């Protein structure tokens, strides 16, 4: 079995990559994907900890995170669509207000 330390390291790197993208990218879809990357990094950590400690709670938290990620994507894409219709762009540099 893979050493959970390696899995933890991978999840930490994925999390920081996601955070990096969320801070530096201007395209709202890419920022949304970066949030997903962070959530999945957390999932990886939960899963690794669950297997290591033999506790199923980590898997349950993963289910929670997956459901929240699905809701986030649905709402996020709907907001992006609305944003595009209002401002004709999804560049976060140009869209500064949520209201038109």
């Amino acid at each position, binding site marked *: 079995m893979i050493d959970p*330390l390696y899995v933890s390291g991978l999840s930490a790197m994925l999390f920081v990559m996601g955070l990096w993208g969320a801070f530096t990218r201007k395209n709202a879809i890419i920022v949304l994907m970066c949030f997903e990357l962070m959530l999945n990094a957390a999932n990886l950590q939960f899963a690794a*900890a669950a297997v*290591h400690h*033999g506790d*199923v709670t980590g898997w349950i938290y993963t289910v929670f995170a997956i459901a929240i990620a699905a809701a986030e994507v649905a709402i996020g894409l709907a*907001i992006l*669509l609305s944003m595009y219709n209002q401002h004709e762009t999804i560049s976060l540099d140009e869209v500064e207000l949520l209201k038109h």
Partner: protein
Amino acid sequence: MRLTSITTRLALLALLFVLLGVLADDAIWANPSDATLDTPMLSDAMFGAWSLPLALLGVLLAVAMIGAAYLVRDERLENLLWQEADLDKAALEALTTSNLDGDELARFATHLAARGLSVAQLFAGFDRDGSGTLDTMEFEAALRQAGIDDLPFRDVDALMRTLDANGTGQIDLPELHNLLLQHEAAIGGGEEE
């Protein structure tokens, strides 16, 4: 600006090392368990101790999805118009003024009258979500049932505006009833002539 960018990147790099340091702590990974997790254990936990939180999560997820669907649905007309004619917002209002000659409403009313149902029964058949009103999609489906299936979206919207006497953007039962009354009056007038 450049200083901010460099500082952010350095901070993120520092965060990575902090995270790796915390996660590599022996205290976290000491005492590994010999227990093997399997799917039945997960399902036991989900349907046992975690059933209520998961049910609440499901409800919240459903609400989020419904909200997102409605948000997208509200934008649909604008999107379709943009796709169809590549127009800017200023032209949207002009587009919704259609060149329909009125035959479509007469054909629709004739179809409804020929079905031999009460207005309430017809309305209930079209109102798929049971909201008490017909939105654009439901009205388009009703037109399609009547064999009027070749209308572009803007013409469907124009017909809706014609029927929508109170300007709510949706068709309610009295408005559909008015259409049939007008149809009956037109037929009666035609027969008298």
